[in-house]
C-alpha cells in the first residue's frame, strides 16, 4: 500500500571514501605550512600574566627568548628554594649566576646575546628584540637583574610576553 515500502530491493549505496585521503592531505598541508616548531623546551613552565594593550611580534626570527619561571616541585627539593630560574637556550640559571654587580658584564648573558647576534646580518641587528616570558608569580628582583644585564650589553628593545585579555 505504502509508496515508501521498506526493503524494496534497493539498498543505500555505500559512500565512496576515495576522496578521504585528499581531504586529509589538504588538512595536513595546512598544518604543515602554519606550524612553527617549538624550538626549545621550557624547563620551568612560565604562565605569563594577562594584559590588554599588547602588540604582536612580527618577525619571529629577530626575537631572542628568555624564560623566567618558578621551578617545579621536584626541582625545588633539589635546589632547596623556589626562587625563579632564568632560562637561556636549553639551560637554566639562578638569579645570582646571571647577574653581576655594578658595571661588570655577566659572561653568561653576554655569551647568549653574542651567540644570537652572530646569526643575524648587520641590517637586522638594530631590529632585534628580546622577548622575556615571565611567570606571573615570579618576583621583580630576577626580572630587573635580567633587564640590567641586557642594558649593559646595549640590547634595549624588549617585549614582556603576556596573553591577550579582552576588556
Amino acid at each position, binding site marked *: 500500500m505504502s509508496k515508501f515500502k521498506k526493503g524494496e530491493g534497493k539498498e543505500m549505496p555505500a559512500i565512496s*571514501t576515495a576522496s*578521504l*585521503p585528499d581531504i*586529509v*592531505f589538504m*588538512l*595536513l598541508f595546512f*598544518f*604543515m605550512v*602554519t*606550524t*612553527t*616548531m*617549538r624550538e626549545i623546551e621550557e624547563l620551568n613552565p612560565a604562565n*605569563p*600574566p*594577562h*594584559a*590588554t*594593550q*599588547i*602588540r*604582536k*611580534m612580527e618577525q*619571529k626570527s629577530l*626575537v631572542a627568548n628568555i624564560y*623566567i619561571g618558578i621551578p617545579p616541585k621536584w626541582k625545588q627539593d633539589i635546589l632547596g628554594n623556589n626562587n625563579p630560574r632564568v632560562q637561556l637556550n636549553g639551560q637554566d640559571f639562578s638569579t645570582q649566576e646571571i647577574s653581576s654587580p655594578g*658595571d661588570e658584564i655577566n659572561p653568561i648573558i653576554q655569551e647568549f646575546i653574542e651567540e644570537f647576534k652572530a646569526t643575524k646580518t648587520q641590517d637586522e641587528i638594530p631590529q632585534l*628584540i628580546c*622577548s622575556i616570558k*615571565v*611567570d*606571573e*608569580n*615570579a*618576583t*621583580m*628582583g630576577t*626580572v*630587573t637583574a635580567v*633587564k*640590567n644585564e*641586557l*642594558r*649593559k650589553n*646595549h640590547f*634595549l*628593545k*624588549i*617585549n*614582556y*610576553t*603576556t*596573553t*591577550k585579555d579582552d576588556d
Partner: protein
Amino acid sequence: MASKRRGLPEINAGSMADIAFLLLIFFLVTTTMEVDSGILRKLPPWPEKDVETPEIHKKNIFVVLINKNDKILSGIGSATKKVEVYKNGNISSSLKDDIKKFVNNKGDVNGDGVFDNRPGSDMNSSDSPQEAVVSLQNAKKTKYKTYILVQNELTKAYNELRNEKSILEYGKEFGLLDSDKQNTIKNYYPMNISEADIKKEEDE
C-alpha cells in the same frame, strides 16, 4: 583484457588515509598557533661612567611605587595616593586617569619657566607632555603580575592620549595613520618611563 593480465597489480591505496592521518596528528600536536605577543618597551641605556644624569624637576615626575606586598602608591613628585587593586585582578582606573591628567597638564609649554596659567592646568604638575616622566619603582619582592598590571595601565594611558590627539588632528585613529604622522604624535607624547632612581631637584 590483455592489458589487465600483463600490467602490474594495482597498489592498494586504502592505507594512504591512515598514513596521512598519522602525519596530520603529528603536526596537530607539534603546532603552536599562537603568535608571540606582549608589551613592547625600550630600556634606557646603561649609564656610562662620569656622565651626570640630568636633573628633573619634581613636578615633572609622576611616581608609581609598587612595594613588596604588591600595594601600589602613586602621585606627582612623591607617591602618596593609594591605588586600589580589586579582588578580580583589575586595577582602579584612577591610576590611568591621573597619568593622563599629569601628562596633559601643559603648565609651561613654551619652557620659559613661568606658569602659563591655562584653565584646567595645575602649577604643581607637568610642564609639557614632552617633559613629563613616569617613574616606575618596585621592590625586589614585587610580583611580576602586579608590575605588568601597572605597565598595562601606563601603556593604556599613553595609547588613549595618542589616539585622542590623532582624532583631533587628523580625524583618524592612531593605528590607521601612516608612520610619519604616527611619529609626529609619538614625539608629542613620548613615553618617558624611568625605572631607575631619578635625582629630584628640590624646590627652592
